[in-house]
């Protein structure tokens, strides 16, 4: 009798432990095999396109001016984004909105929203122009980034953007972000005569 109770207690304890265990323990254990082939960072360089945007780590060599950027923009971007990036056939404005976040009509643009200027380089290189992404040279991307920053009033007309100048551009929304602090509600399970 005693030992049966003990067995039961152990079984219950095991079940409880299993339910409380973190999810990972329910994934199977790694088999002692490895099918990956070694590759060098040099051999994957063409894929290594990310920019760590707060400090610009990963920005490639190259440079571009606001004037060059205007030419790139008018050749490759204006059809969808409209003259001076004020909105076009495919997308709304990419200028303005700075100072709009305390109003009920927040206007999201690279100027108002991006906390770090290298986001513009990273995103435009990987995703734009939408009809031919990842085809522009680093010089073209720096130039068009300079132009969009200039249209947003964030760099002067004679600005030159490169590896070292782009991360230094002060973005208005730099301190606009707070980490996830949810749950931010504490609803109760009322059943009768609620509210």
């Amino acid at each position, binding site marked *: 009798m005693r030992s049966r109770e003990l067995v039961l207690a152990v079984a219950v304890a095991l079940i409880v432990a299993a339910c409380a265990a973190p999810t990972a323990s329910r994934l199977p254990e790694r088999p002692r095999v490895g099918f990956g082939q070694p590759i060098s960072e040099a051999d994957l360089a063409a894929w290594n*396109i990310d920019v760590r945007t707060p400090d610009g780590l990963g920005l490639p060599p190259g440079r571009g001016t606001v004037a060059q950027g205007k030419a790139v923009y008018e050749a490759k971007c204006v059809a969808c984004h409209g003259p001076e990036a004020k909105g076009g056939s495919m997308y709304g404005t990419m200028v303005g909105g700075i100072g709009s976040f305390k109003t009920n009509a927040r206007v999201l643009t690279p100027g108002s929203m991006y906390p770090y200027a290298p986001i513009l380089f990273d995103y435009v290189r990987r995703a734009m122009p939408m009809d031919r992404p990842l085809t522009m040279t680093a010089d073209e991307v720096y130039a068009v980034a300079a132009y969009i920053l200039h249209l947003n009033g964030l760099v002067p007309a004679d600005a030159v953007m490169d590896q070292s100048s782009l991360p230094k551009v002060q973005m208005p929304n730099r301190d606009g972000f707070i980490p996830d602090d949810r749950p931010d509600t504490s609803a109760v399970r009322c059943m009768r005569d609620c509210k």
Partner: protein
Amino acid sequence: MGNDTKHSRRSFLGKSAVIAGTALAGAGVGGRAGAEPLPIPPTAQQPGRPIPATAYGTPSKFESHVVRRRTDVFVNRQNWSDWSMTPLQHQHGIVTPTGLIFERHHAGIPDIDPAMHKLVIHGLVKQPLVFSMSDLMRYPSVSKFHFLECSGNTLADWTKAASTTVQQTHGLLSCAQWTGLPVSWLLDEAGLGPGATWVLFEGADGSNHTRSIPLDKVMDDALLVYAQNGEMLRPEQGYPLRVFIPGWEGNVSVKWLRRIKVGDQPWHFRSETARYTDPMPDGKWRQFSFLMECKSVITRPSGGMKLERPGLHEIQGFAWSGRGRITAVDVSVDGGKNWQPATLEEPVIDKCLTRFRHRWSWDGRPAVIQSRAVDSTGYVQPTVPDIMKARAIAGFVQHHNGIFPWSVSASGEVRNAIA
């Protein structure tokens, strides 16, 4: 049976299929005098279509209204960075049929030859590695049922009712069985370097879509997925390879995955600063709000349907939580004043859609019906006013997990009653 009968029978079938999509008949139809005698259905008097030599089966032609739809509430100016939504009002179990799983792409759907596809792992690892699809499929596999929800699900319906159907309000939600292998296996194989705390995932689509994910979550339960619901991924779900991050906003489960990079801090991409962040009071934005919190919705009866007559109507819906299992769902039919526990249908799985059911006898008077879910952490699904107290409801709002009411009029019309 004459030709005339056949014809009228056919057109009747056609009509009833359409009605079944929108109207719900009540109970109490038994033994009515004057019912027409039942004719033998023509399908019972002839052979059907022969089995074709090869085929991928498709639903009955009478179910052609059950399709994904792009939203017509928030209309994009192009359809490469756009979305389509799951017809939840027609989903009968917890698994979303593969062709109905919602879509959200940022540069359309690439067609990738798996024989050419490669995955690389590099950055803060001891040995950068490259894998072919056949390398990846040599590992033992694991299958898990999980929901997938876009952070923008329900974004059009906060302070005013903008959408009509539950497909429009909640259709950026689906559930499938996902098959692949733990990402942690491959990170262990490459060997994590000192300082490794964040992991970048990047797609091979035209947006080269990228997100930064904390290493702890990746090691806990992230999967490299190549199959769903028993078949290889559909192109629009990331064929041939995606990462799947259970319980977190769909955007982080990067499709068409080609690169994993380990780092010591997040990258702060556009997709995690300018987008996929939540407006907060005082002009601030909440960032890295990955988790999809506990939520539920009634899918039947739901917006656009009609209750034909008073009597028994089973209220059906889904509940889910990115934090764990659903432990309870309550239903109110009086606008949130009184609540009754609904029945949860097995299986009830961690970070997975759970079906709830509640038998409701509608008295034919106007009613407001809604559901409220509770998860295994004790978190109770809030109302929209609860959420508003904490967040700024403006612009392109994400992570709306508020209680969602539908109104039923005296004539049985079911409408969005969010505000």
